[in-house]
């Protein structure tokens, strides 16, 4: 039990804003006013002085996200029911049922049957993509410019250690993923419907691989944010790993069927 007089001198010492907090508050005000570039400049300078501050990193990341027009506030309901962040990846372990359920015709309705049959080689990947897209209906699609800012935000948060920072990074990962996966679908559809099949399919597969890398990063962030679910998430990561390992052979089979008709 601590009993002390309410001595103002001590209060002053305890309560004084540190210089770092001053800068953080100022940057937050700039973000609220939409002066994102100014906030980014301020926080980059601050991080040069105090590179280990998770709080500064989160504010800098939020300035990039705000510049991209992404406000976690708008996805409050989605973010609060964070089970949706965890449950999605957990379901990936049910690979077989997901694979069976994926409807190629629904994803690529305009493609000829031959192309649809060829794309069945990618069913495990497409199943995951569809599952995530289905869960991220509330998440906005972002263009390349926005995606660039969001990836900068994700990168800024990489060294952070606090669980909250990992939740934020996971949310940003998901927003980028949603658009990545939409682009993957478009690229695969393009490969199957236009000239330059092989080249387009290679681009699509590289993009798909990069998206799956981001998905693994998302799972890693979740594991950091929810240590008690880390074992489950690790299982899901291993599942993804094996899907990624199978991807080159699936791509090869798809290429043969789709581009060479054999």
């Amino acid at each position, binding site marked *: 039990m601590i009993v002390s007089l309410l001595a103002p001198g001590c209060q002053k010492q305890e309560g004084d804003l540190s210089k770092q*907090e001053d800068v953080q508050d100022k940057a*937050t005000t700039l973000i609220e006013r939409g002066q994102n570039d100014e906030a980014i400049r301020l926080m980059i300078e601050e991080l040069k002085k105090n590179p280990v501050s998770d709080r500064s990193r989160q504010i800098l990341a939020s300035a990039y996200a705000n510049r991209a027009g992404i406000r976690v506030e708008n996805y409050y309901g989605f973010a609060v029911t964070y089970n949706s962040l965890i449950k999605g990846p957990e379901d990936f372990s049910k690979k077989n049922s997901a694979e069976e359920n994926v409807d190629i015709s629904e994803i690529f309705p305009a493609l000829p049957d031959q192309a649809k049959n060829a794309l069945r080689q990618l069913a495990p990947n497409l199943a995951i993509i569809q599952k995530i897209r289905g869960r991220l209906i509330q998440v906005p699609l972002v263009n390349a410019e926005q995606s660039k800012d969001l990836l900068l935000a994700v990168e800024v948060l990489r060294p952070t250690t606090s669980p909250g920072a*990992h939740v934020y990074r996971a949310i940003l990962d998901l927003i980028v993923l949603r658009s990545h996966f939409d682009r993957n679908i478009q690229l695969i559809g393009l490969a199957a419907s236009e000239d330059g099949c092989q080249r387009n399919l290679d681009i699509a597969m590289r993009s798909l691989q990069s998206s799956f890398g981001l998905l693994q990063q998302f799972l890693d962030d979740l594991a950091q944010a929810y240590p008690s679910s880390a074992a489950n998430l690790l299982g899901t990561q291993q599942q993804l790993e094996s899907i990624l390992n199978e991807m080159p052979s699936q791509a090869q089979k798809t290429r043969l069927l789709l581009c060479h008709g054999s």
Partner: protein
Amino acid sequence: MPRLLNIFLSALLFLLGAGAQAQTAPVNFASGRTGLAIQSLGAACFSFDVSADTLPCNPAFVAMQQEQSFRANIFGDNNISHLNDTVALVQGTGQQSNVQNLFSSRSNSQFDTRIEAAYLNHDFGLSYEPFGVSYLSSFRNPALPQITLFASVENSVRLQLASFASASDVYLGVQIRYLDRQIIASRFFLTDLLAEGGSSLVKAQEQQYYFLEPGIVYAPKSDFWNPQVTFNFINWGAHVNSIAATDPSPEAHLGFSVSPEIGWGRWGWALDTTWSQNIINASDALTVGSFYQMGILKAFGSVSTTSSGAGFSVLYDRLNLGLSYTTIAERIDADNSVSEQRVFFLLGAEL
């Protein structure tokens, strides 16, 4: 005399400290003081006694009481829907849904409610508040919501002792106040709350305060103006378990008031000057208050750079009803304040 006054004021400023505090609770929240008079009159309530609440703000006014009385009040405001969620959160029985209810509007929000009973005569006043709840939340940065949260469930006992020195027209009083509360004082990103273990950010702490708050009123006899010079020193005392963000800062109030009888009642004006480390700009130290009393009706209001309010109370038979509308800007850090319009109500009985 002016030199002495300067020395006194300089010493007082030194004693009270100066400068801003980071993430400090709003003044009334930290001190646990609220009520119809405080919300409507602001700091001017230390210069007036409008008898809107159970006990006067300045304990020296107790010695001016003509009759003994027993009062019981329920006091609250328009955000009373937060009551259950706040209590659940502070008492540690809250669920995710309580947090969601409180934060779903994502707007700055304040809330106060109290139940209090008191006995008052011209020697002393004793009040007991078995239940009081205060809540304040502010949201910043929509890109990554940063939440400042203060929530408290408290009970308190106040004893006011007063005496009158007739030879010098001076009324002396002291308030001994005990405040026991469970309090949450936290600032975090929404994502911190969503992470595993995030509920620790809204974990309440126990605090007990013991305050000694002296007051003086100099009221020279006057036929018309009824001038008064008042002084009150508040929030001075000791505590068990310090939370820097919610420890109330000592404040000194020096006021001057007049309250002449006019044709249809009594009309009072007061100017209060506050010394506190929470005062950043000199202009924030000044509060102008006024009241008008006619029969059973009392109307009162105040203006300062940080708040303004207007209210009335009616004592009909044994029933006391009051309503007040205030605009309050509560500072939550050096650059930002939470501004909100609030309507307070008071339902009371007086015997």
